[in-house]
């Protein structure tokens, strides 16, 4: 039996339906990440789980108990907010102990609990400070401490890293991951950063305008996106979407000028002549030297370079062919200059095919 069940949750605010029937299950100890563009309803759903915004219809079940009508404080859920929502007038210690105090736990016990959490998060030296005297990363840690100390049944995180800078984000992300692995907590996590989603989740839910687009493991979401929206949303730079037509032995791209041999597992079921969209992630388009020798189907495409973006670790090279731009990821040391003709290696093992009309993946 699932530990957290979200059953056909709908939420109307005014006349607008924000959540349009959400169904999600999560097993005990799972790490569920909700992703989706801004305004798609992620926070709304999280608030519904927390009990802060009662849903219009549907039920929330935790560990077999329907909590839909329960007050937030009785659901035994902890939440970490994007803004951290630390109480500005209390010290770190008081912030962490507040929930325990509200539950009537006596002082000595509170102190032990706070001390143990502070140790886990390495914030012992900050306990007497106020939130305004902390850096972003420290605040983040205190916010987590406040959730941890309660040992709740479910943790909710609403974009907890979005206020941190890139470097810190990587660090704290690792901390959250470690935390999950060590405590085996059940977590629901909201983000719109796909790297966060991919690295943290055991299960990802992609939302768009209040409708679930896909539920799956990170690998499923990344490698087998259910539709164009999911494919485009996950991954940066985004997946290359190339218009093509099914032909014998593969898919004809770039106005028919190039035919690539897509493995039969992908296109077998499709009639020849069908218009398709071939999706290929940048890391599946490489410089020829990096082409995976173990791949079954590699196609080499010579195209003119229209943009070069060296990131240090890699170089993203954008090529142009028949008026279509595509971006590949080459090794950092590959020499490439604007305007030259460059040989790209398309690894078609990793290709996916979408129906241009419905937008759904068909292979």
């Amino acid at each position: 039996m699932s530990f957290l069940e979200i059953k056909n949750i709908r939420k109307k605010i005014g006349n607008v339906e924000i959540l349009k029937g959400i169904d999600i299950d999560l097993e005990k100890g799972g790490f569920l990440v909700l992703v989706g563009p801004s305004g798609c309803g992620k926070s709304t759903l999280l608030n519904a789980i927390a009990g802060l915004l009662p849903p219009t219809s549907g039920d929330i079940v935790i560990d077999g108990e329907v909590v839909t009508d329960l007050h937030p404080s009785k659901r035994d859920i902890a939440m970490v907010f994007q803004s951290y929502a630390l109480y500005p007038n209390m010290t770190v210690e008081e912030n962490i102990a507040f929930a325990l105090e509200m539950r009537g736990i006596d002082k000595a016990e509170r102190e032990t609990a706070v001390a143990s959490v502070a140790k886990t998060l390495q914030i012992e030296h900050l306990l007497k400070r106020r939130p305004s005297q902390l850096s972003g990363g420290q605040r983040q840690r205190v916010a987590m401490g406040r959730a941890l100390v309660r040992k709740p049944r479910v943790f909710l995180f609403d974009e907890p890293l979005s206020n941190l800078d890139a470097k810190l984000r990587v660090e704290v992300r690792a901390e959250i991951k470690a935390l999950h692995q060590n405590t085996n907590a059940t977590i629901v996590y909201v983000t719109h950063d796909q790297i966060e989603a991919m690295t943290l989740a055991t299960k990802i839910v992609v939302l768009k305008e209040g409708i679930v687009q896909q539920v799956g493991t990170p690998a499923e979401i990344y490698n087998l996106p259910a539709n164009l929206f999911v494919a485009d949303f996950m991954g940066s730079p985004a997946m290359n979407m190339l218009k093509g037509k099914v032909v014998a032995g593969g898919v004809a791209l770039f106005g028919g000028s190039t035919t690539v041999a897509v493995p039969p597992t992908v296109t077998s079921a499709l009639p020849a002549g069908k218009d398709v969209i071939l999706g290929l992630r940048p890391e599946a388009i490489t410089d020829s030297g990096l082409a995976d020798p173990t791949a079954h189907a590699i196609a080499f495409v010579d195209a003119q370079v229209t943009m070069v973006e060296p990131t240090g670790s890699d170089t993203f090279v954008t090529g142009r062919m028949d008026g279509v731009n595509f971006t590949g990821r080459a090794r950092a040391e590959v020499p490439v200059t604007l305007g030259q003709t460059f040989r790209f290696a398309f690894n078609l093992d990793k290709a996916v095919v979408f129906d241009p009309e419905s937008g759904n993946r068909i292979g």
Partner: protein
Amino acid sequence: MSAIPENVSAGSVRTVRYFIYGALIILAAVYLLPLYVMLTTSLKSLDEIRGGDMLALPSDPSIAAWVKAWGEACIGVSCVGIKGYFWNSLKMVVPAVAISTLLGALNGYVLTKWRFPGHKLVFGMMLFACFIPFQAVLIPMARLLGAMGMSNSTAGLVFVHVVYGLGFTTLFFRNYYEAFPDELVKAAMMDGAGFFKIFWRILLPSSGPIIVVTVIYQFTNIWNDFLFGVSFSSGEASPMTVALNNLVSSSTGVKEYNVDMAAAVFAALPTLFVYVVAGRYFVRGLMAGAVKG
């Protein structure tokens, strides 16, 4: 925002600065004139006042008028000065400010963090209370105070000030709490804090700036009120302004302007003190909420 560095020649920068300081000093002098008139007059003798120039410095300054105003001037049949009325005002102002501020804070809290259908209408209706002319409510107020057994008592006066201060205090706190992050309330709720706990432990301790604005505003308004004071209190229980009025406005009696002015300065001391001490926080508090910008 802060000043704009003007990176032109040093000379013209100096000219501009001279202009700014000059203008401010002249304006300050103009603003201070009435206070100056009051102070110099209070130090003059009656003869000098009758004969002389209001703006001249006292030729022979004396604090006799101050002594008299404080402890000897007649407010009605007893001539004990205005010192006793100080207490009356304090006894009225302190609870009235405290209660109206607290209620305003609670109202602001409910109207921003516990919204219910129609909360805007309720707020709008409460806000309208700021605008009612007080002269229009005297008689019905007297009637209801009588019915509630609070007529002619400090409690009644406190009640009246609370009632007609509510609109302002609610407005101030609502605007302030509007900008207060909802997440903090949500977090506290999930931590198990109830309605009042959230208010006491989370919102109120963070309301310093707006409390300053509200307290200053209410304090000066209530301290300076005359109309309610004269209508709903009497005799030795009257607030300062009523006593001061008795001292300074006598229709067919003899007037001692120096004493009047000294008493007036005494009466103004607490509010002056409040503005001088808390002026900085006043602007800061206005920034923090009362002004929408």
